[in-house]
């Protein structure tokens, strides 16, 4: 798998201006998180359960964004990382990077859900934000009460 730069994805999410651009960056970010989490689904590591659940949460988030009416279609075929080689290698490092990206997604998607008037976009953003929050909680242990 081509290692994508999680940090670059986070930058894109934070820098996205309008809703369509933000949705497109969120879609790619979820795709990127899915691929990265699957890379670390190794039962030998103690993070195995967290990565399994995070990967599925990323797929759920991607599917939600795909249904947003304001998502540009067809999406721009951006090369992941655009030349920025490599992503996090170690599971713990990957978990931190994914947590950071998911945190950025939560902020942007929740804000977008509050601002948009279209119910389809609102639902998509709200659900996708929930999936991003789940990823953050899984990888940081924040959901452990």
């Amino acid at each position, binding site marked *: 798998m081509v290692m994508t730069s999680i940090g670059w994805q986070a930058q894109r999410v934070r820098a996205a201006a309008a809703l369509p651009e933000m949705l497109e960056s969120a879609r790619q970010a979820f795709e990127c998180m899915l691929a990265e989490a699957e890379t670390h689904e190794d039962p030998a590591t103690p993070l195995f359960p967290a990565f399994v659940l995070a990967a599925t949460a990323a797929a759920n988030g991607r*599917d939600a964004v795909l249904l947003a009416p304001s998502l540009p279609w067809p999406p721009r075929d951006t090369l992941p990382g655009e030349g920025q080689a490599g992503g996090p290698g170690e599971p713990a490092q990957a978990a931190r990077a994914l947590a950071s990206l998911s945190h950025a997604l939560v902020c942007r998607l929740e804000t977008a859900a509050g601002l948009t008037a279209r119910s389809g976009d609102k639902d998509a953003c709200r659900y996708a934000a929930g999936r991003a929050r789940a990823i953050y909680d899984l990888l940081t242990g924040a959901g452990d009460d």
Partner: protein
Amino acid sequence: MTSEATFGDFLDDARRQVTGTGRAPAGGEDLRDTTQSIRRVVVVLGRYTRDLAAALGTGPRQSRDPESPWQQAAAAAHRELNQAARYLTPPVSPKLNLGTRPSAGTARKMDSAAVMLQAGRELLDTHVGTAADGTPIHRTEWAPALTSHPVRQALLAEVAELAARVAATSDQIASAPGWRGAPGPRRALREAGHCLRIPAEFVQAASQHEPVPAAQRELLRAVPASALPPRRLPGPRHDIAGLREGTIATAQRVRRSAWRTATQTAPAITTDSLRHNADASTLTSHHCELLLRAAAERAAAHFPASDASQEITRAADAAGRARASWLAVARTLRRITIETPDNTPQPPGETSHLALWTGRLTYTDPSWTLVSGPAHQTRPPRMLARSLTDIPLLISAVHHTLDCLEANAGAEHDQLQAAARAGRILVPALSLPRAETCDPFIVAPQSRVTDLLGVYRTAGQASAHAATAAGSIARWVGAPSRVLATARAAAGTDNRWRSAPRRIARNGADWPGPLETSVRDLGVTSPWLLQRAIALDRANAQLIMDAVAEPGARRDGSPAQKPSGSAATVAAVRAADDCDLAQLLGPTARPEPPEREP
């Protein structure tokens, strides 16, 4: 197993009541009352044999072996118990009102036995009912095992043995002095006793021909009532025993849920439910692997010289393979979606609860949850199995768990087949090359559907292997869950993955032919191109059928086909279930188009 009442409990109680009650009567006991109480037992036993005679007489084996010894035994038992009941029926008398007098001594014990036997019959009825035409109605996942011939034979053997005990008691009563009452009941008891001994003689003869394995009798006795334990979640104060019991109870609920899903006509699956289940099954089998490795370590400590530890380690390896195969399911599901009328997100189901219960057993953290995040420490093996007797109980919990995962795989595999036939399996359009559509999701190409069903098959097989391995250990160490393996064998579900079709049927009206499939595999959604592909597929099929039907059309050197074979071949082409038209035409290269992974 949990501590719920089983069919064996009722049998044991009835056996205790009818055995050795033929003593001399205490003062005030009336022979007519006692005779009627015995009759009640006989009537209930007769109801069992009525069901058994119908079942064994109309079962699938009848056509092959219409006069099998077991069928003869069932028919004889039914006939003789009816005859015994007739002997014991009192003559009609306006002065007789036996129902209003309280029974005493022997009569009370017989009445109690009749109640226990009736309760046992009702327990079995909660799993298998009977339709008006006599066909069995399966109500729970126990039904396939209970309607199997070996288990029915085991039940007949139990009934015959009880009838013989009642006969012995009847004889003792008939010859004991001191009873009040007329000589009529003594004679009736002797004649009834003669009838009641005959079923056991037939069963003995049938057993010589085809013995009832002890495991089948054990399975019959272990059948619980159909009511499931209530849904519950582990609390921080649950000890190991409580966690084991909770795991088993949840596994029972998951197994029932899978059985219900498999027997529903309307598919209930959604993307959410499938993804939840796949993740939970991945983690659950991971926990099973860790628990089995802990059990192996404890077994090695307790039996350094035996093979127990190695066998358990092999079962742990099998659980590891189940985990890997469920992970493949989870990954595949992340790339498809199911079209459902209501796409409302669903909360995790009971499979997630099972992952939680097994996780609590596995990890030291008493508040561990699926979303607990990174790294948690596993329990030391000595905590999981402090003593020798804890090992079989731990094996039982794991065995129940792996068994229900296999049931889940089967139910979901079948529902996905139905969803595929209905064109309800979708993929993100972006994951296909040349997808030109405004829809974010399009109908999955056949290659994706085949992959999806394939990973489910693998997960089902791997879970079944792991459950079988755990079941073997359960038998070996005497774990209570060993009856699960017997039930699986009796029901014939232990080899379902060997017979499951590898592809879904292609003869449905909506199913694409090879050309349409190839076009769809390329991500083409243009109605014009798809219609052309469909038309060409139909023309292909027609050409094959015409060629087969054409007299003397064969051009190779193979022997000429029989005239009657043509129609059959055409039918085979039409029905081509697992057969590709491309295969019929000969080896063709239909390369899988490269798919762009999302």
